[in-house]
């Protein structure tokens, strides 16, 4: 023992000092910290604005968004446009990366301030937004592949 415990006593002095310090814990359910403006909570979709462009579905790294698309004349203009009849966000897969929000051309998908999410069953975490429920367990790839020829047409429509 070269210094005969001086370092130990110094350390104990520090812990004793902290014993009387102000505590830094926040009592969580009673105290809710205001979230910063940019914080990314759970996603939500404004289905009225969705144009079913599938951008979010494509960019999503974890395939948590599945959209079932149908051509439908919603605004009565006579031209059937792609319409999302089924829209599911599977929160058990979501990374909260925010890529879908960034690519959305009409800002219909956005983060909320909500981040407390719990369920007894993993499937309950899949939130349906469309009028027809989409099965979140099926990976969206086959649907996309099948729709591949059909998808070209609405694109042409959009361009026209």
């Amino acid at each position, binding site marked *: *023992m070269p210094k005969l415990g001086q370092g*130990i006593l110094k*350390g*104990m002095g*520090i*812990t*004793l000092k*902290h*014993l*009387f*310090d*102000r*505590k*830094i*814990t926040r*009592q969580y359910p009673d105290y809710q910290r205001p979230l910063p403006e940019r914080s990314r909570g759970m996603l939500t979709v404004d289905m009225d604005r969705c144009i079913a462009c599938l951008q979010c579905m494509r960019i999503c790294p974890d395939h948590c968004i599945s959209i079932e698309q149908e051509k439908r004349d919603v605004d009565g203009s006579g031209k059937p446009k792609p319409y999302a009849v089924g829209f599911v966000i599977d929160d058990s897969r979501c990374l909260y990366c925010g890529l879908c929000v960034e690519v959305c051309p009409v800002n219909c998908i956005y983060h909320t301030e909500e981040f407390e999410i719990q369920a007894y069953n993993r499937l309950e975490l899949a939130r349906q937004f469309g009028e027809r429920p989409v099965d979140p367990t099926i990976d969206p790839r086959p649907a996309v592949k099948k729709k591949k020829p059909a998808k070209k047409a609405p694109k042409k429509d959009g361009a026209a």
Partner: protein
Amino acid sequence: MSLDILNQEPFRFLISFGAILFLVLNLAAVLTMAERKVSAYIQLRYGPNRVGPRGLLQPAADVFKLFTKENVSPSRADLWVFLLAPIAMFIPAAAVWLVIPFAPGAVVADLNIAIVFFIAITSIGALGVIMAGYGSRSNFSLLGALRGAAQMISYEVPLILSLLGIVMLTGSLSLVDVVNAQAGGFWHWYFLPQLPMFVVFYIAGLAEARRVPFDLPEGESEISGGFMVEYSGMTWALIQASEFASMGLISAIHVTLFLGGWQPPIDALDLGSFNWIWFGLKTALIIFTFQWIRWTMPRLRMDQLMDFGWKVLVPVCLIWLFVTAGAMLLLPSVF
């Protein structure tokens, strides 16, 4: 009149024994709470504060939870040894309380060999550790038990040696005599003439109670709980209770021997039969320093622990034993 019978043996002893058991179990509960609160305050947290007013009912909730939990034992465990080990650890931790004087006249058994009783009974604690580690049939437990046995047996030596000075000074092995000899203000307490012994007893006591920095038998970062890694539910609660009881016990013995027991610091503050308050306060102070050290220090390694015990503590004890003997021989008027 009818109550007089309670004051006779064996009823007096049985009642006091019940009271002591009650005290020890409650002490364990209170100390868990104290431990958590002290650690929380040192770490800038609040600690448990949800159950009851300011979290004071947390120990009750813990006990309730632990007693309703299933008691799981490993399939290959030596079941008898495994289940008896917590009891073998708890009984010694509780039994020594019988000889501690809490207040003037308030002692269950005023043995004239109380110090020998204390030494003998605490040694049994090591047996419980070995039983727990061996009975679990797990490598981690076995390592913890071996460490525990080595540590507790080697720290017994400085622990005993550091008591001898006081025995020499009082000329008695009875704790009541030791306390009575320290009457008359804190400058009569034995921690002043026996300062090195006081420190050695404190350190060896930490090791006996398996507290940081000597908690190698537990060593939760390397052997993840050591000898008690396989315990759960009630058996685990019993081990924890015995850990805390032995911590309280070491503090109480420490206070009795070196800090005047129930003696007030100055005579003016004598509270008569309420002197157990002084005893309680001093014990609480020692327990607090135990906890304070625990939440500041890292843990020693086994070889360093052994080095420290045998190469530092034992020589210090022996030297001071000679110093005490020499002083008694040369200055008989002082003692």
